[in-house]
């Protein structure tokens, strides 16, 4: 069977706010799914397969699609559940890419969501390491130290930030600038959560220090929200619309050794900001996409950055510049909506984080920018190629997708 081109023909997003108490999971997701069908001009009966995911710990429901997917049009259809933690949305999008590229399923609905307000986010997140923490208590770790190690409200990203700032020369002022840039972009995005038009870096600098070096203003919110995307073959897409966005390639890299390994055995990822996996995934994605010089050929980037430093760190790890150069590129203004290589025009994860959906929303934004559907936040330059990224796992799982306005061949 010949490999098929993959195109995005529809994107749908629900409202993204901190607590949706007016809908349950199935209803919230349907908002995104129905918007996606409408965007594509398709119906559930047209769909050949469904791929869905969320982070199972947050809602306290095992396989929510078992009772929810009927509401999304999946009855008597092939349905696959893919979950990889914070990168779930990206992994679901990758699943959609492969489903179409395989030639077996022509029209694939990809759904990613999170309804954190239904559950207990802290408890959900803690289960990442609960087994190992329990083991370490048995072996004599002081619980107070364990709690302090955990990074408080921020989590283990503090270590990544600390190390990145040393290796790149990124300062806290850069973090403030990133937050301000993203929240201003978010103000132009009807689907974002934290919209702060006119926010200045100085205002971000005044927010509470949560855990060195990260301030409250540098951190993402907890959002309830859903994202849906329709993938189809290039051939079908061209019959449906003038300007589909093509997914040229996807790649992921699992460099998992967590932060302290199993039961405290230590991690072989000795420097958390290196993120070798992101570089490997990006290199492979560019290679498959036929991109030889990403820093020249990529027009727009949506890195996954719930914490401000990550926008700069992943810009570098996505091979868009030399290591250590992102802070000065930010200073130059190049990352703005009217810049040479806009970053996070959506406002990014730092403005909107429905965890299971977030990595898909990076792909969705890249697609919408290519299709010219971003209204007020549409970037000034023509977007021919874009890169979308997801980060998560414990700390070392990266997913990358490259999109374009023209197919691979």
């Amino acid at each position, binding site marked *: 069977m010949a490999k098929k081109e993959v195109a995005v023909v529809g994107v749908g997003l629900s409202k993204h706010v901190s607590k949706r*108490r*007016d*809908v*349950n999971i199935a209803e919230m997701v349907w908002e995104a799914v129905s918007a996606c069908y409408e965007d594509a001009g398709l119906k559930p009966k047209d769909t050949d397969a469904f791929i869905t995911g969320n982070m199972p710990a947050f809602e*306290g429901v095992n396989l929510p699609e078992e009772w929810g997917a009927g509401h999304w049009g999946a009855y008597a259809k092939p349905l696959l559940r893919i979950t990889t933690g914070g990168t779930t949305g990206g992994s679901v999008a990758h699943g959609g890419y492969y489903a179409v590229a395989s030639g077996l399923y022509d029209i694939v609905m990809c759904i990613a969501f999170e309804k954190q307000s239904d*559950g207990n986010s802290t*408890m959900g997140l803690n*289960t990442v390491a*609960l*087994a190992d923490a*329990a*083991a*370490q208590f*048995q*072996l*004599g*770790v*002081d619980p107070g*130290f364990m709690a*302090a*190690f955990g*990074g*408080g409200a921020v989590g283990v990203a*503090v*270590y*990544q930030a*600390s*190390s990145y700032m*040393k*290796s790149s020369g990124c300062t*806290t002022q850069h973090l403030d600038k990133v937050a301000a840039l993203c929240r201003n972009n978010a103000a132009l995005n009807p689907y974002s959560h934290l919209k702060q038009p006119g926010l200045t870096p100085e205002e971000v600098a005044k927010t*509470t*220090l949560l*855990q*060195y*070096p990260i301030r409250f203003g540098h951190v993402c919110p907890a959002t309830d929200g859903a994202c849906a995307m329709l993938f189809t073959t290039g051939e079908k897409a061209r019959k449906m619309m003038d300007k589909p966005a093509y997914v040229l390639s996807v790649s992921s890299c699992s460099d998992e*050794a967590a*932060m*302290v*390994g*199993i*039961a*405290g*055995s*230590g*991690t*072989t*990822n*000795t*420097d*958390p*900001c290196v993120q070798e996996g992101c570089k490997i995934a990006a290199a492979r994605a560019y290679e498959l996409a036929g991109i030889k010089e990403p820093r020249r050929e990529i027009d727009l980037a949506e890195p996954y950055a719930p914490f401000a430093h990550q926008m700069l760190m992943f810009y570098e790890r996505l091979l868009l510049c030399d290591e250590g150069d992102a802070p000065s590129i930010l200073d130059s203004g190049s990352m703005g909506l009217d810049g040479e290589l806009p970053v996070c025009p959506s406002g990014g994860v730092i403005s909107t984080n429905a965890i299971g959906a977030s990595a898909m929303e990076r792909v969705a934004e890249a697609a919408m920018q290519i299709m010219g559907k971003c209204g007020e936040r549409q970037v000034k330059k023509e977007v021919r190629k874009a890169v979308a990224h997801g980060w998560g796992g414990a700390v070392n799982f990266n997913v990358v997708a490259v999109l374009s306005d023209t197919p691979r061949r």
Partner: protein
Amino acid sequence: MEYKNETVSIDGGWPLSTWQWKMESIALIQKSLEALKKKKLLGLKCPGCGLVYFLPKPYCRCLSIPDEWVEIKDTGTITTFTFSGAWAYEGIEEEGATGTPLIIVGIVLDGSDTMTVCTLEDVEPEKVSVGMRIKLKWPEELLGRLDDIAHCVPA
């Protein structure tokens, strides 16, 4: 029939106590902990790729099983750090600043290929940096527990 536009919240639970995790790594780690009583740091080396795991791990990413005990030093390098507890950071007065924060560092001990974490003492927060050399601070009484290697000082 009239629908009321109103939702109800329903309480539920997730009984965590039903999991009984299994970890043979603990058996390995206990051997290293025992050696701490003699101020010896024992890591486990992988025959496939040569990586030294401290604390020991029962499997390696190269799919071989680490099986050679090697001694590693009690000196090492800081690869990352953070501070816990509000204090005057970069001269900015923080609410509830208490003075000296707890300094948590990620360290790679000499001879090991893994990063572990502990607290750093006897140094001002502003002086802490990635790349600094440290030495483990052994407690007075060695109990053969993770606590024994939970502290370090600048070397």
